[in-house]
């Protein structure tokens, strides 16, 4: 395991916690004593792959994940909700990092390429500020596209070597179109009834992570500034991880990033034990020195 100058001692502890949560039947739960959770399993497999530990466990995790994959390639939140397919993107990233799951990765990518959020031509309707005709990805089938699922799909398809695919180019348009004029992103609405909605740091980190290498720096300069400023006081794991990953993707990783990640890990004293996804994301943020897309491509099986 990589040790980044002694700043990442917490990472060993995080890896051990993830490993300790492995289910006997394969895969990982969101929290200890929970049931198999596809997104948690995919994130755990990604983190364990990147630290090159627990080879058997991550293979078993991917096997369980692949077993939950439907015949069209999607990975849903649960068997009861096949329409909620946002974990597919994270699963594709996990499959791409694990030998023997190339077919599962291709099926997941194919599903993403064949599906999109609902689009419509809004004509003269000015209710929403963004272009509702652009196809990105939704959280749930039959709903509109939003920033996070679209950003995750871009990362997944990029990790599959599909960064020049027309759907990725469309997704880049979606994400850029949802950028708040003053910088940053929120869940995916820029203006509603003519009023500008505020940006949030976690969506900004996700969007910047996805756009790295696909758009010019000038197109996201205000958003980088927004995120750098916001991140100073944030130690909660989801936002901090994606914030650091997003900034690292644009070569502006904060110099204090490693100590911030350690501080975030230690905040479990206050918040209780983190979800498996959050532990994995802290690990990814520590390792993604040039962003997530590059890390995934360099680490691909």
């Amino acid at each position, binding site marked *: 395991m990589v040790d980044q100058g002694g700043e990442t001692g917490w990472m060993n502890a995080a890896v051990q916690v993830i490993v300790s949560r492995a289910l006997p039947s394969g895969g990982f739960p969101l929290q200890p004593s929970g049931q198999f959770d596809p997104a948690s399993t995919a994130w755990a497999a990604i983190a364990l792959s990147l630290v090159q530990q627990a080879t058997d466990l991550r293979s078993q995790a991917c096997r369980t994940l692949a077993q939950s994959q439907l015949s069209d390639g999607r990975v849903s*939140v649960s068997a009861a909700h096949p329409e909620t397919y946002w974990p597919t993107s994270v699963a594709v990233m996990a499959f791409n990092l694990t030998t023997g799951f190339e077919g599962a990765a291709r099926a997941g990518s194919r599903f993403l390429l064949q599906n999109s959020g609902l689009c419509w031509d809004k004509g003269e309707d000015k209710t929403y500020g963004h272009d509702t005709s652009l196809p990105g990805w939704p*959280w749930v089938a039959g709903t509109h596209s939003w920033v996070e699922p679209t950003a995750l799909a871009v990362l997944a398809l990029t990790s599959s070597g599909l960064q020049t695919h027309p759907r990725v180019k469309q997704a880049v348009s979606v994400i850029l179109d949802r950028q708040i004029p003053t910088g940053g992103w929120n*869940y995916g609405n820029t203006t509603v009834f003519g009023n500008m909605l505020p940006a949030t740091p976690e969506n900004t980190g996700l969007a910047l992570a996805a756009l790295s290498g696909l758009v010019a720096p000038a197109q996201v300069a205000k958003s980088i500034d927004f995120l750098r400023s916001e991140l100073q006081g944030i130690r909660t794991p989801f936002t901090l991880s994606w914030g650091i990953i997003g900034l690292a993707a644009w070569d502006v990783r904060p110099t204090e990033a490693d100590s911030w990640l350690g501080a975030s890990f230690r905040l479990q004293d206050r918040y209780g034990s983190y979800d498996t996804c959050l532990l994995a994301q802290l690990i990814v943020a520590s390792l993604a020195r040039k962003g997530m897309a590059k890390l995934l491509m360099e680490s691909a099986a």
Partner: protein
Amino acid sequence: MSRKKWSRREITRAGLAAIAAGGAGYLLYRSYGDPASVFIGRATDYRADLRTLIETGLKELGIGAMEIRGRTVLLKPNLVEPHEGRAHINTNPAVIRATAEAFLSMGAAKVIVAEGAGHQRDTLLVLERSGLGEVLHEDRIPFIDLNSAPLVEIPNKGWFARLSRLTVASVLLEADFIVSMAKMKTHHWAGVTLSMKNMFGIMPGCVYGWPKNVLHWAGIVESILDINASFKADLAIVDGVVGMEGDGPILGTPIQSGVIVMGRELAAVDATCCRVMGIDPFKIEYLARAHNRQGTISESRIEQRGEQIQSVSCPFRLIETIPAHARIRES
């Protein structure tokens, strides 16, 4: 004379008639039975003695230690997204703290706070930036993230929208007494967001998305009615000490409305809030459709306790260009 045997079709018809008669009886009961009680308490700011105010309200509503002792009380605040200088977006932590203290003093075995924030994925950040995290930490009150907690399916008892079942966190079924703790706000889709709309937050983001777009496509009004038909809160407490007027629920401006509104029947509480806000509840679609199905919104059927509406009336600014705000002003 031999008794005529009923055919299966006749039995079905008779059954439907009985159901219809029962339904009509229920409507009559709601229309002509006991009125709903709603308490209005005045609080000029969050430094006021909110615990005493909440305790007074509970007493006025007939909620005593006998009902609460030994039970698990779940408080469901409105935490949409926190932003600096916009404390009026979310239920104020001082109101949540006062309510928790009131229930604990009545002998509740446990008070927990639970919410599934509607827009932001980072629930811990929502807690920190709203100020609620610090209060819960100090008071050792557990928080459950309804966006990611273990789930259970419940039937959709409303059938206003096309969702055949609803998925919610199982902790909601395990709690004994649930309190919808909304913020008094205008809303650019629903007209107002109060205790019934606040129940949107029990729907988990991991299933319905961030925002909970499945419910938007199914119909906001229909989803509000379905959620409240399928899952009933035991009490509503609306934080209107500082409300939000204009382009709510995020971009509106604060208004010192100075009230806490409480009641067991959510529709009646929301109707009273509307009247305080200078809005006709019969012109709010979800309330008009809830009327006589999920409670009453008729002023004559609501017994006001505490302050009277006229004494705390505080018309909220509306934006006529927003369709949900058009023509909802009380005439």
